[in-house]
């Protein structure tokens, strides 16, 4: 088996008195599509956000390939270019057009020339089917379109891992599918993905591994279909019975 892209070791996170992550050990290997499910407040998003150090673990260590993110000497900005993340609230820059949103980091971080950055931005917009919206500001796009631009923006950095933080939770029901379709295609193309989601259908169809979290711990890890079809663990069974 190939060496893991991401590795977490004994990760704890406290927010004040609140013990949100309670000793997480986890590896993500190349081409893995890892779905993370669990009740709200179980620490799924916090776990995802420690993977690119948006949340600094209170305790424990995080590696990307051979680089330890939790080492203060690590250039976190460089590592983050390999870890794309997409947020629940899209977080597009509202003062920039769709293509400018993508070009900004290509220019300022990767130092691509103007033409190359523009070409790559258009290529990624095409990838998510929004080439024709290149010059629109986010305020003029639907939620689903904004989220697809956000995915294109992350992909344009050519990351090795994509992190998805409940990316369809803020969308109107009829806009969810277009985003899931993009993610599904990405998974089929072999992208390594960690997907925190409430979309059980997506977790079942697109993921090849699944985590069930509860109260800051990984309760179960395994094959998504098996976990959905034969939920043996009582806490998982309780969770699924409440949402399905």
């Amino acid at each position, binding site marked *: 088996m190939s060496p893991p892209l991401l590795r977490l070791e004994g990760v704890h996170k406290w927010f004040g008195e609140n013990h949100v992550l309670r000793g997480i050990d986890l590896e993500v290997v190349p081409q893995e599509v890892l779905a993370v499910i669990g009740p709200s407040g179980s620490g799924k998003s916090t776990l995802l956000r420690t993977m690119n150090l948006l949340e600094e673990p209170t305790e424990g260590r995080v590696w990307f390939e051979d680089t330890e993110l939790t080492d203060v000497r690590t250039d976190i900005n460089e590592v*983050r*270019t390999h870890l794309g993340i997409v947020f629940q609230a899209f*977080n597009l*820059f509202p*003062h920039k057009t769709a293509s400018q949103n993508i070009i900004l980091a290509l220019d300022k*971080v990767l130092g691509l020339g103007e033409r190359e950055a523009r070409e790559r931005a258009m290529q990624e917009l095409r990838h998510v089917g929004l080439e024709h919206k290149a010059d629109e500001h986010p*305020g003029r796009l639907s939620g689903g379109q904004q989220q697809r631009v956000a995915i294109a923006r*992350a992909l344009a950095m050519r990351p090795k891992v994509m992190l998805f933080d409940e990316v369809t939770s803020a969308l109107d029901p009829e806009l969810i599918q277009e985003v899931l379709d993009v993610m599904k295609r990405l998974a089929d193309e072999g992208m390594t993905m960690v997907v925190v989601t409430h979309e059980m259908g997506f977790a079942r169809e697109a993921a090849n591994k699944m985590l069930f979290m509860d109260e800051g711990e990984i309760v179960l890890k395994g094959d998504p279909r098996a976990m959905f079809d034969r939920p043996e663990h009582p806490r998982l069974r309780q969770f699924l019975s409440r949402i399905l």
Partner: protein
Amino acid sequence: MIVTEGRTSQENIAQTGAERRLSASALITLLLGAAGLALVIVGTFLVIVLRGLVPYERVVEGLLSSETLWILITSLVLGTVAIIGGFGRYGRMPTKRSREQAIAGAVLGIQAVVLAAVLLLFREVGDPDRFVFHFFNIEFLQGSGGVFVRAARNTLILALVGELGGIVLGLLLAMLVLSKRAVVRAPARLYINFFRGTPLIWQLSVFYFGLSLGLGIRPEIALGPIEFGPAYVSAMIVFILNTGAYASEVFRAGIQSIERGQMEAARSLGMTYPQAMRHAIVPQAFRRVIPPLMNEFVILIKDTSLIVVLGLAASEFDLFTQAREGYATTFNATFFTAAAVGYLAVTLPLIRAVNAVEKRLRSGLVTVTS
């Protein structure tokens, strides 16, 4: 739209003769109130202005003329009728529209009555001759047009330099205050609190006298053909330092009002903190702080009058110092009236502009278009 029209026409059909008469009386009330107020303002103004403003006795004659008396009495009557008609019947009005007309007519009537009564009282009991002589004596201003234009220019230069320098300094201070490191925050906080906590007039005095007397520094600046001496230049510097302190608080609030996700998105793309600030956060924050910064500018324009305490050369006088100079040599307060006109000519359009920008920002148009 269609639904509303439909309902209105139904109402019209359903209206009885009594209701129609009430609706008509509401409109008449509105017209009476409006006419009363217009008459007392425009009528009095015209009677006075058409006689001429110079010499001041003309103005007094205008005020005391029988035309003015009739105008004021007519306004009183119109206003009173509107008040009685509007307040007496608004509760019985059949439509919302006619009720609003009745109320508006009554309120305009109150304004007309109050204004007309004050003017009548002033005319009959007061001393118009003495008042007009001191406050509206245009004769004294003759020949001062040039110096007042120069004074307005000096006021504007001072305010503009203070505002632009203050914006640059304020942005810098905001960055320091927003640092996660206490050692960086502390000196910036100290600076800001000092300048917000001491009177501007104290800052002006101490900086000027401290610089020129204490340190022997006498800065001078020439902006093209315009030359400014130590007092004026010291004031420029103090207005920059002071505005910087206030602007930094405006910027800090503006930057903190940008959703946390924006910084997270920028940092996740590999941008450094300064890059994220420069390209993602500050451009958004800047748009949000335009109205409060413009308000600061209006305040600054008025605060420049405090340089009256410094020893300015005549060519450096601002509007207020110029007015005080005129008063000091003639003991006539019309110069202060002229200064007020000068300040308002600048501040009123600015205040309008602030409101327009705020409205545009509230409607969300700015985030979409620019």
